[in-house]
Structures are given as structure tokens and as C-alpha cells.
């Protein structure tokens, strides 16, 4: 095994130096913004998302549509519920898995889905999972017809839904089922990736960076056969974005 110190000292040598120089005083890259600037950036990102929420919702709807999301605009909670019920019916869904995002409680998604005759379960656990429970959870996700989540953020520039997996939001709920529905609330849309990563960095500085993050932009796709784009290879074949209007 290559010893770590030995390996790194070879790198130092290749750089023509004798010891490591701390580059943190070099402000050449964005990475070296001060903690103060980072906090301000993150705060601006949040307040902009609220202030321009109507415009950003329109922008994200447009960007999402062009990359393959089926976009639905819901005027209120009830409307959102019936849109979701409609999708479940169309897919003849028997089993539905949902995250514990609050918006799904608000739109009473359980009732909407149950009304179609499908069974719905919420992903969550108490922090005491062993490998056998994990296998069970995986098997369930792979046999589910529809996965429903809220969003942690969305990005207007790219039509992206951002999810941070955690208790109540499994990694597979948005990946394994052939259909994924994401429900977006007003004020959750950021302008661009810059705002997202400013907030991520602020979380990091505060010691609150989440264990993982998924940026989801449309249905799973590939163009590996003769350059023809085909939707649905390993992830969902169909993805829906339900955008709740301001009430």
C-alpha cells in the first residue's frame, strides 16, 4: 500500500516544493469567500426565492417542460390532490410510496391516493435500521408503482428538483418506481445553481451539510444507442412536477 504521507510528499516534490503551502490566502476562486459573504449569499438566495416566487415558478415550469417533466399547475391543495390521484389512476398504481414532506400532508395526498384504490406508505424510520430492514425497504421501493415527494428546492435555470435524502425521504422513493411525482410549493424555487451551492456552502460552514444530495432534472435517459435519446433506463420512465399556486 502506498503510504499517504509518502504519496503526498511525492506530489509536493512534483510541484517543485519542499513542503505544503496553505493556499487559503489566495482568493482566486469562489471557494474562498469569507463566512460573512457566504451567509449573505445564502440569505439573499432565500429571500429572492420568496420575493420573486411567481416569476420563478413560471421559469421553472418552462425549463422543466423542455427537459421532459410533465408539468401540472395546481391552483390549490385540493386541485393538487386530484392531479396526483389522476396520475395514479392512469398508471393503474397499486402501491405508492411517499416522503414525509409537509406539503404532502397539506394536500392530503394519502386520501387522494387511497381514493383510487391504491395503497400508500410513508418512508421513515427511527434510526435503528439494520441490514435486514434496509433490504426490506429496498425491495419495497423496487416493487412500488409510484413515488411521491415534495422538493427541498427547485432550480429555475435548469428545471431541477433538489432532494436531500434523510429520514422520511429515502434515496429510492424518487428513483426506483417507474413514475415519480414531485410537488413544489411557492417560494421553493432558486434562480440558478449558484444560489443552490451558495446555500450548500453556508450549510457546510454551519456544520449542517446533509449527507447526500440529488439534483433531478427530468426522467432518466440515455442516448447510448445510435445517439437516439430514449427516456427511462435505470430511473423513472415518467416524472411529474406539480406546482402549487400562491393562495
Amino acid at each position: 500500500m502506498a503510504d499517504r504521507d509518502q504519496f503526498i510528499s511525492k506530489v509536493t516534490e512534483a510541484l517543485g516544493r519542499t513542503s505544503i503551502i496553505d493556499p487559503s490566502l489566495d482568493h482566486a476562486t469562489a471557494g474562498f469567500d469569507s463566512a460573512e459573504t457566504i451567509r449573505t449569499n445564502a440569505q439573499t438566495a432565500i429571500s429572492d426565492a420568496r420575493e420573486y416566487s411567481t416569476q420563478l415558478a413560471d421559469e421553472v415550469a418552462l425549463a422543466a417542460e423542455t427537459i421532459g417533466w410533465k408539468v401540472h399547475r395546481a391552483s390549490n391543495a385540493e386541485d393538487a390532490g386530484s392531479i396526483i390521484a389522476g396520475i395514479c389512476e392512469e398508471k393503474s398504481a397499486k402501491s405508492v410510496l411517499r416522503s414525509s414532506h409537509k406539503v404532502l400532508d397539506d394536500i392530503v395526498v394519502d386520501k387522494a391516493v387511497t381514493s383510487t384504490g391504491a395503497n400508500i406508505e410513508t418512508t421513515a424510520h427511527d434510526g435503528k435500521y439494520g441490514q435486514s430492514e434496509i433490504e426490506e425497504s429496498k425491495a419495497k421501493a423496487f416493487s412500488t408503482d409510484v413515488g411521491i415527494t415534495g422538493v427541498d428546492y427547485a432550480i429555475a435555470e435548469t428545471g431541477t428538483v433538489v432532494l436531500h435524502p434523510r429520514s422520511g425521504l429515502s434515496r429510492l422513493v424518487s428513483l426506483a418506481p417507474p413514475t415519480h411525482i414531485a410537488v413544489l410549493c411557492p417560494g421553493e424555487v432558486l434562480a440558478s445553481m449558484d444560489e443552490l451551492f451558495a446555500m450548500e456552502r453556508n450549510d457546510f460552514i454551519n456544520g449542517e451539510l446533509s449527507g447526500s444530495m440529488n439534483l433531478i432534472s427530468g426522467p432518466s435517459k440515455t442516448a447510448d444507442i445510435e445517439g437516439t435519446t430514449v427516456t427511462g433506463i435505470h430511473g423513472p420512465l415518467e416524472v411529474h412536477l406539480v406546482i402549487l399556486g400562491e393562495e
Partner: protein
Amino acid sequence: MKPITANFRTKAAETLEDQQIQQSIEHVYTGFFKGRLNAAADTNNWEELRTKGKAIKDHTIANLDYYLSQLADNVEKNGGNVFFADDAEEARQHIIDIAHKRNIKTVIKSKSMVSEEMGLAEAMNKEGFETIETDLGEYIIQLANETPYHLIAPAVHKSRSDVAKLLDDNFSDSEPIPDATELTMMAREKLRGVFARADMSVTGANFAVAESGSIALVTNEGNGRMSTTVPRVHVAVMGLEKIVPSIQDLSTMLRILIRSATGQRISTYVTMVNGKRTVDEEEGPEEFHLVIMNNGRLKLLEDEHSREALNCIRCGACLNACPVYRKVGGHAYGWVYPGPIGAIVSPVLTGLKDANNLPNASSLCGACHDACPVKINIPRMLLELRYRTAEGSTDPQERTSSAKERGVWKAWRMGMMGRSRFDLGARLVATALRPFTRKGWLKKAPPPISGWTSTRDFPAVASKSLRSRLSNRLRRVK
């Protein structure tokens, strides 16, 4: 993977004759090249982003020791394991050891060029672990028992009927060829079963963030997400250059990488993981390993002429832009990295002696430099490598020009140094070539310049030079 860079000429000639491949690789131009141009035009601060991307990479590479050390600390702080490998063999053996120790049966692989350097999938299969490529292109390539043709489109040279035969052993030529959707769904079915039983994954890392110990994976298919979710052991492999200092740098780097690779504003999935699953998650690996590999990269780093090559983010834009790659194809380059970037990386990583044809496989048109999202000056480095093969290298093994070739150039230089010498030389060459000229064309020149006419004809040398005709005429006018 063993380099076979010495076969460039024969392999290139083979591909030029292959009509099917010529047709298939058109896509890198019509799809990727044009896609990138559109994406760049659609991004109003594109040049600014490229400049920023270059600054981030320049800074990181100039302080690589610091950032490697920081990255390793943070991966460990997040509960992961870090292994530094001097070469591909060491890295491969380490991963095989992990698989043995953890009683692994099935390994899923995401696309990773570094794992290609190790020949990992093949080695693990030999070792008894069912090891399956999950990127559709790589899966096709694995079934065909070939190596990737392109950095981001490994199976770009395969036709639908090739793929149908690979996915279905019973497929016969008399059947109608399934369309791309049908073929993709066949692969989906097969690979879903593999995902369900996989207990270990090996992925690459598009970027590793030093300050947080995170790795970022970019995929369209979702196999990167599956690989970081389903198996209980996740191993990520990376070349030592794939670092960015800060989480914020990802915003710039992801934008230029994805737009340059496929022309998309964003890939379907970008996945960031900081190691194993957190305690309150329902799925995710219980163990995370990061393997950081040198395998010759320090040779690039220590040489100021080649250091810039470590800025490469493997988007493939230089391949798509290259008029030579688009004709000779990916396999001619003989190692993991084809195209213009391969022509500068392979000679240094695998030895210039065998790879001496690669720096010459370029018209020096500069399209790769224009296309590069981090502005790597590939033509400058190609020239430097050509200089070394001709006379600049102190290593006699690398100086591959023959004494005869050097003699010809020496004579040429002498001939060019004075008016009368030049005139004499020109007359001698014209006279010497006259017996080989037929009907105004020189179709078969004698040695030592026979190579120049093996694939093209030259117009015959004029009986009188322009200069002598002009001076005759001027005399008449007077």
C-alpha cells in the same frame, strides 16, 4: 488496460475503411459538437465561466498536495476510508481485497475512465465476482468485450443490429432490427435484476470536494444514483487531479462540464455524497471507500509543459471537435483516453516511445483548444511532444526520429539558408522527380519520400519555377 498506442496507423486505417463505423461516429459531430455550440450560445456568460473554470483548476493543481491532504482528512472525518494508489495495479488489488473481505458476490460499476485504466471489471470477474457495467454504453462494450470508443459515449461506434445481437444471443439477421427504445428497455430489464442483488458498487468521481470530503457524480441514466444507494459497500475511484477546493466551485464546474459534454444545461442526475449513509436513512451504503490513483499523473504534474493536462474534466468536447478523431475513431489511440486529450496524456502516462504517432495525428487546427471548457492548450502540448520525438528528448527511447529523417531535415535546413543554394536544391529535386512524373502528376515518389504519395497524388513540379518565369518576363519588359 494495456496500452497498444503503437498500433495507431493500422487501427486508424482499418476504421477509415469501415463504412458502418464512419456512419456511426458522425453522431459525435451532429449530436455532441453541435449540442455544445448551442449550449454555449445559450449561456450568456459562457466565456466568463470557462475563464473561471480554468482559474479553479489552475489553482487546485498548483496546490494539489494541500487539497489531497484536506480531501483525505475530510473523507475520513465523514467515516469513509481513503486509499492512495501509486499505480493501477495497486488500486485494482485494493478493491479486490475489499470485495473479498466483505464477502461480495455482485459488483455494479458506473462509468469511470480511471477504472478502465485498472481494467477493473475484467479483473474482478476473473477473481470470481459477478461484475457488471451499468452505464448502457459501457454495458454494450462489456458484452462486446471491447474498450470504450469515446469518453462519454463508449458505444458510439455500434449500430442497432450490433446491439441487438449483444443483448439477445438468439437474435438473427433475418429479424427486423429493434428500435433504440426497445433495445434500451431490454437492457433496463436485465440491469434492474442486477441492481436488486448488487452488494458492492464501484463508481468514478466527476469531482471530489476537498473542504467537505464529498464526491459529485454526473449521470443521465441514474446508474450513478443506483450505485450510491443500493449496495452495502461503495467504492469511488478517482485520478489525483479530480479535486475542487470548495462546494461553491461545483456550480461553475458542473455548468461547463455538462454543457461541454452533451450540450445539456444539466444532466438528469447530479448526485453528491459525503460517504456512507447517515444513521436515519432507509438505504445507502454502510461503507464508503475512496481510491485516489496516481498511475503516471505525477509525470504530468512535474513537467511544466504538461501540467495543464491535469486540468482536464473528461467532457469529451475535444474529441467531438477533432477532425482526426471523427475519422480515425477512438480505438486507434490505443489506450483509455482517445482524441486530442489522449494524444497528450497517453504519451506521458504510457511512454512516448510507443505513442509517438499520437502527437502527429493532428492538423493543429486548434478546434480542441477552442472547445475545451477549461481552455487547455492542447495544440501547444502536441507541438512540444513532436519536438521531443524529433530531437528534444534526453531519453533516447523517446527520441524516435530516425538518423535518416534527421539527415533529410538537416539537408533541407542547409538548402534554405541561401538564395543560390535554394535554387540549386529546387532544380535538383525537380530533375530527380521528373522520371516519376506521369501526365502532370506525381503518383509514386521514390524513397525516402514515398510515404507522401502513398495516400495522395502531387501535381508535377513545374518545369520552370515561378521565380525564374517572373525574372524572364521582367527582363523582356525592360
